[in-house]
């Protein structure tokens, strides 16, 4: 490779690191994106000068169509659909890496050195797993596949079996790269495992799954770097892999669960009997929109807790408008964001930012959790498991030990909910039946708009 190309790759690597550094603060984040864009331009420019390229026809067509699709998706997808779009793009990333690996094997097969073969194996394994796994995650988020955890007998045994088989195939191929049949068995088994591993995971656990798939997509890209002996791929892949890893650790910590538990511990077998649920329902106190508005308008301090229900009802703008009204009445309004509220890391922050809530009004769990006790009204908009006091009190609860927002400690807690059905995790929530809680049933967006009318 020429000095020019190597220099371009080196510059690209530095720009990627500087780009990610930019994201450590909202003020510098957009500049960071610009750095990474320049980095990508350098890397692509360097690659286009590659000696092996004899025709640009298909590159131009695929690049042009891909860019058009990318632009359209970026412009048209609503912020509420961001988890779906991220899952889909992980699928594309995994697919690209897997296909490059298949091509490399197809072209060189038995002539491959063991090192390159091992790298191709990793690339195809992670790429294929990410491709089908992300498609499944997308299907679950989009409602094309049942969002509940689908379980069947021997599920964990067969998944672990498939994984062990993949590792064994990888080892055999590395020893003898000529085993073409086995290579394609590896490819298809990895594709199948991606589906199988995500099927049992409920939609509430998607933040962890999406973060893990993000990491796998990065590892697949890094493995491509080892195959092609290209450092910029290794660096970009490592950065992506590290990012997904940090996020999935943060997400599982916020749920007080290990990776293994998320991947193999499909929960949701609701232990509660119908009688208990009925007894609880009898304690739920329903409030009219008028009563709830009165409570809110007379409260000097309000904390709003958004959840996935806010995204489903597209209620973020109505939430902000209500907050503005309360603020202009002199109330102090803050937002408490649980790390796993929504379907992906940071989901609620983006939605509220879209609705023009200034980001210094958004507080993380640790920063605000002690303040609930001194707060007059906590307004829960479509959140469930992240405010479930059972996580603090009931040792038999499947979410016992998970850090939750102290919504139950506010003087009054107003819950906006469509029905009393349990959350996606399938766990009943005692908060709704507490003495200081009132529930307003109905679509969150509609309820909020009528509250705003009443306040205006």
């Amino acid at each position: 490779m020429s000095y020019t190309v190597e220099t371009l790759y080196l510059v690209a690597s530095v720009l990627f690191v500087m780009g990610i550094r930019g994201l450590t603060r909202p003020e510098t984040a957009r500049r960071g994106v610009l750095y990474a864009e320049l980095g990508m331009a350098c890397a692509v420019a360097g690659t286009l000068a590659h000696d092996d390229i004899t025709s640009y026809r298909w590159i131009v067509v695929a690049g042009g169509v891909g860019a058009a699709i990318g632009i359209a998706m970026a412009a048209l997808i609503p912020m509420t659909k961001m988890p779906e779009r991220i899952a889909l793009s992980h699928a594309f990333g995994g697919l690209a890496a897997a296909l490059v690996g298949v091509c490399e094997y197809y072209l060189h097969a038995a002539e491959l050195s063991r090192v390159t073969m091992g790298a191709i194996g990793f690339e195809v394994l992670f790429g294929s797993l990410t491709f089908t796994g992300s498609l499944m995650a997308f299907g679950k988020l989009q409602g094309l596949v049942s969002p509940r955890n689908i379980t069947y007998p021997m599920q964990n045994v067969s998944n672990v079996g498939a994984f062990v088989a993949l590792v064994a195939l990888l080892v055999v191929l590395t020893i003898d790269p000529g085993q073409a049949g086995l290579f394609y068995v590896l490819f298809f088994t990895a594709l199948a495992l991606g589906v199988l591993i995500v099927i049992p995971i409920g939609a509430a656990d998607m933040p962890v799954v999406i973060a893990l798939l993000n990491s796998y997509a990065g590892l697949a890209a890094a493995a491509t770097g080892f195959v092609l002996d290209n450092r910029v791929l290794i660096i970009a892949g490592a950065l992506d892999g590290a990012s997904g890893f940090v996020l999935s650790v943060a997400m599982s910590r916020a749920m007080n669960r290990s990776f293994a538990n998320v991947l193999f511990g499909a929960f949701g077998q609701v232990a509660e009997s119908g009688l208990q649920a009925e007894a609880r329902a009898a304690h739920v106190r329903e409030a009219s929109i008028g009563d709830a508005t009165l409570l809110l308008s007379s409260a000097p301090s309000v904390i709003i807790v958004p959840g996935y229900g806010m995204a489903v009802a597209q209620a973020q703008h109505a939430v902000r408008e209500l907050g503005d009204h309360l603020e202009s009445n002199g109330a102090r309004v803050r937002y408490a964001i649980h790390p796993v509220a929504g379907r992906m890391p940071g989901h609620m922050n983006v939605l509220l930012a879209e609705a023009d809530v200034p980001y210094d009004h958004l507080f993380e769990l640790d920063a605000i959790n002690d303040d609930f006790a001194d707060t007059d009204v906590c307004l829960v908009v479509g959140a469930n498991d992240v405010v479930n006091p059972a996580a603090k009190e009931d040792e038999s609860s499947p979410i016992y030990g998970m850090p939750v927002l102290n919504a139950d400690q506010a003087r009054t807690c107003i819950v906006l909910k469509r029905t009393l059905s349990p959350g996606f995790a399938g766990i009943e929530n005692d908060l709704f039946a507490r003495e200081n809680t009132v529930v307003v049933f109905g679509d969150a967006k509609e309820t909020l708009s009528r509250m705003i009318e009443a306040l205006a």
Partner: protein
Amino acid sequence: MTTELFVGLYVFLLAGFIGYGVITGIPPLLHTPLMAFTNAISGISLVGSIVMAGGEFSGLTTFLGFIAVLAATINVVGGFLITDRMLKLFKKRE
């Protein structure tokens, strides 16, 4: 070959540590843009796909390379644009 493998492993591990260090400093506020952003960066597999699509090694590799370039470009272009679209939304109170 061994040297190249080890140079690669050094690069991978050191980049991984840098990534880990920098990314733990990114506030949860920006975690969604971060995912879209790293997703765009991992579209770097474009580098491998481009050579396959333009190399004319065989019909099959050109076809698979074509699909790979398509998928990776969607990620690169779409990923950067959507990250920027999200970041524009984050404002402090005037």
